[in-house]
């Protein structure tokens, strides 16, 4: 019903726009790229992506767009592609470039902007994206949702919804190996817990204090961090919020035997350990560790290094040697590509909450050569963080605040066969003005190979069940 209505509204809108739309005449050429939003100029996109609808940041009366065989002529400043035409275009040009020309009628004059390109690659991005929608000030929430979006079209459904869950806080839906049949998310508050999805069967786990986590390749183990999270405030308005851990440790939970495995190396009282993740071969746990400092006073001295410790999946034992891989600035969120070749992480000047750090950038380490790429083409002047790989290791998604410094949006970046990253693009929306009107951050985006086999009703039901307790 909802989809039918949306299509109906779109048709009405298109009919209104198409009727009597002026066409370009006496066109004036411009050397500037069109001021389009989201910025889709010269980006690399997968052939399975939804239409890159956009708007022109100009007071224009009409707009004409030519992209490959598609020609759109519409009133106003918003360009919306027909999804069937778009899909046909994508399959036709996969592996090649499309030239896009934008001509706009501004103050009675048609202006043709400098054309730009879309590089369409055959490497597909995983079709589903889950994320949490929450106000950027994470201290107090209301109406939180975890949504699942098909990036091949505009279908969205909630897998955790405030209406079903007594308006509780929820966070981090994470897959094992981008597999929708094995994933976990948290529902907070009294009676809350970790909701494990195994082949669509949900269970509620009582894993003590678990916050950030990652599955082992076989799915038998998760490594997770526990932390005492403290929100703090900067007096300088531009810096806003800071969040730090008053204590944090890392553990491994055996999901089969339901017990917790610990190591003194991962729960050192003189260190903060956080953001654990397994390597794709399951032989290491990568994480971030910092020496404790006086907080909040010495927050700027809080520097997390990127480290790893061996793990034996066959016996469930943690190794005894911690290797430091990178210790310049403060590292967060290490994530290894599924092919084991690249390690993507965030670096900030200090601390463990890069979301409000404008200087927070992504870096990528080649695990075969140790070379570090600063990803200049990927990063922006605002926070770029919380990333997740596509199962083919050719794409990653990350949350960027580049547009307004406040609201995180999912951006997709292509990594070609030579390991070179391309200019990222923002998750397309049906209505180009969606992001302008939206007042929620897309938090913790995660890519999945398919649609998860449960919905918000299932989560609400499992919340009423008893816990599976961990020893």
């Amino acid at each position, binding site marked *: 019903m909802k989809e039918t209505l949306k299509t109906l509204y779109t048709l009405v809108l298109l009919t209104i726009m198409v009727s009597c739309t002026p066409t370009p005449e006496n066109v004036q050429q411009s050397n500037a790229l069109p001021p389009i939003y989201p910025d889709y100029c010269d980006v690399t996109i997968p052939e399975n992506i939804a239409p890159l609808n956009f708007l022109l940041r100009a007071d224009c009366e009409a707009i004409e767009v030519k992209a490959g065989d598609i020609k759109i002529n519409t009133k106003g400043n918003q360009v919306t592609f027909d999804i069937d035409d778009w899909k046909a275009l994508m399959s036709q040009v996969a592996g090649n470039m499309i030239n896009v020309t934008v001509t706009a009628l501004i103050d009675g004059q048609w202006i043709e902007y400098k054309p730009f390109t879309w590089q369409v690659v055959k490497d597909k991005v995983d079709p589903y994206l889950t994320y949490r929608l929450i106000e950027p000030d994470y201290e107090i*929430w209301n109406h939180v949702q975890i949504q699942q979006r098909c990036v091949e079209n505009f279908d969205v459904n909630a897998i955790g919804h405030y209406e079903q869950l007594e308006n509780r806080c929820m966070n981090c839906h994470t897959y094992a190996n981008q597999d929708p049949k094995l994933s976990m998310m948290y529902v907070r508050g009294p009676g809350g817990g970790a909701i494990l999805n195994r082949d669509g069967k949900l269970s509620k786990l009582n894993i003590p204090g678990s916050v950030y986590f990652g599955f082992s390749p076989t799915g038998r183990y998760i490594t997770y961090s526990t932390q005492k999270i403290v929100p703090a405030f900067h*007096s*300088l308005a531009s810096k806003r919020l800071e969040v730090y851990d008053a204590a944090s440790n890392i553990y491994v939970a055996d999901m089969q035997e339901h017990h917790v495995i610990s190591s003194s190396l991962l729960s050192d009282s003189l260190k903060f350990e956080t953001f654990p993740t397994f390597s794709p071969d399951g032989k290491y746990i990568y994480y971030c560790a910092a020496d404790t400092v006086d907080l909040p006073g010495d927050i700027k001295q809080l520097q997390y290094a990127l480290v790893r410790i061996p793990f034996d999946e066959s016996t469930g034992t943690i190794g005894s040697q911690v290797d430091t891989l990178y210790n310049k600035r403060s590292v967060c969120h290490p994530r290894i590509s599924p092919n084991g070749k690249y390690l993507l992480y965030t670096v900030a000047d200090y601390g463990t909450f890069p979301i409000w750090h404008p200087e927070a950038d992504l870096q990528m380490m080649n695990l075969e050569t140790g070379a570090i790429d600063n990803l200049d083409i990927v990063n922006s002047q605002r926070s770029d963080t919380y990333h997740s790989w596509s199962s083919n290791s050719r794409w990653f998604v990350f949350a960027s605040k580049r547009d307004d410094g406040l609201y995180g949006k999912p951006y997709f970046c292509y990594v070609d066969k030579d390991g070179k990253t391309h200019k990222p693009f923002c998750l397309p929306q049906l209505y180009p003005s969606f992001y302008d009107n939206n007042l929620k951050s897309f938090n913790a985006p995660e890519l999945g190979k398919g649609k998860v086999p449960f919905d918000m009703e299932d989560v609400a039901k499992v919340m009423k069940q008893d816990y599976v307790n961990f020893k």
Partner: protein
Amino acid sequence: MSVSICRVMALWAVAFFLFFQFWYPYHFFFQEQNQIFLCSWDYISSYFERSGGLARLTGDFLTQFYYYLYVGATILIFCLLLIGSLLYKALENFKISKAIVLILPFVMMTFVAVCHFSTSYRLSSTISILGWTLLLWFISLMRGWKLRLTLMVVSLLPVYHLFGLPQLKKIQMPDLILEKDFAIDCEYYFGNYDQVIKMVENEDRWTDQMLFFYNLSQAQRGELPDNLLKFTPNYLGTFEKIGPDTPMLTIRNMNELYWALGDITFTERAAMMTNVFSHNNRNVRMMRRLAECNIVSGDSLAAEKYLRILDKTFVYSKWAKNIRQNGHKIYQKKMQMVNQRDTITISDNAHFLMMQLLDANPDNIVALDYILCSTLLLKDITNFKRDYDRYCIETGKPRLKPLYQEALCIWLAGTNAPQEDWEKYIRRADVFQRFQQYNQQRGSAQFKGTYWYYFDKIKAPEI
């Protein structure tokens, strides 16, 4: 419809219009301020994601015009009259007993009107009732029960989808105290500080909300210390802390306090939190404030985010345009007050925040008066003296308000200070003279209004 029924309905409408317009107008303004309606396709389409989309869309669309005088009451009475008339015609067509036909429409109109006594009762619910009444009227136009039944069955689902189910409220009396709170809040919002002061001073009962805006208005005229003891117990708002259980109105008030003090970090935080708890998690007043905050803090990208949203409103698009062009000029003074040095704190303790603001800018009189008055309300003379020394003596800018002079007398007397200290702090001979008189008649009612009397006789607020 007979002439006599029309007359009775007209009378009813006039009576309720007069009530809503002249006894309850600020409730409309409050509702308008706590929502936002955007003229944008993606926003409008979001209304239809749940049932009742047309009712909510129409309700929110019309509510934005509550900003204008007379419009709120007019829209509401028009909707109620429509409900009453349609119901009357429908019942008449159904040939129901005359008494019911005459009484039921008035009962219905009055019930819905009474629901609107509550601030949380939205116009969309009334539109929803209107939608269902419209269906009833359509059905009543059909001849024969088969046709009527068919139309009803066919229409139920679409009408439910468009109009949903109306919210029903427990019947309550009009909250005229809350109306006064809203009136004062509204006058403050428009910068009518004299009007706020006049309204509060003319009251014989004061709520925290009234006192809060009274003090805020006085502070911005530099007269907070002159009026602090006019009302006891008083309420400054500086002892509030925002948490998950803090009422939305308090968070909204804190936003006004932080803005007046010049703490942009906390203004923005309170604005975002107010949004979180507003209808559809957004409201137009905070949208304006967020744009203002970011202009003051120099974050033009963030300011533009909110200005673009306001561009799509009917009422505030001109404001957004003006702020975009002249914001730096308009907020120049505020920009000079903001923190320049970065420190980090885990608490929203207002005393600490005000100290930071005064360290950055000792000329911030609003912050200075609030910090000094807050400690004085608590009878915390030691900290008052410390802050007075730090921001009035060490800066060479003594603030010689009688309230402060009186409090300093207490500290000097309590510490057996030497003559030179009395000379250093007490610059007003009249205060010194009265203090000597007070000491001879300690607690006497003729010293009501002095800090000495407050210190000895009035209970300090508990925090």
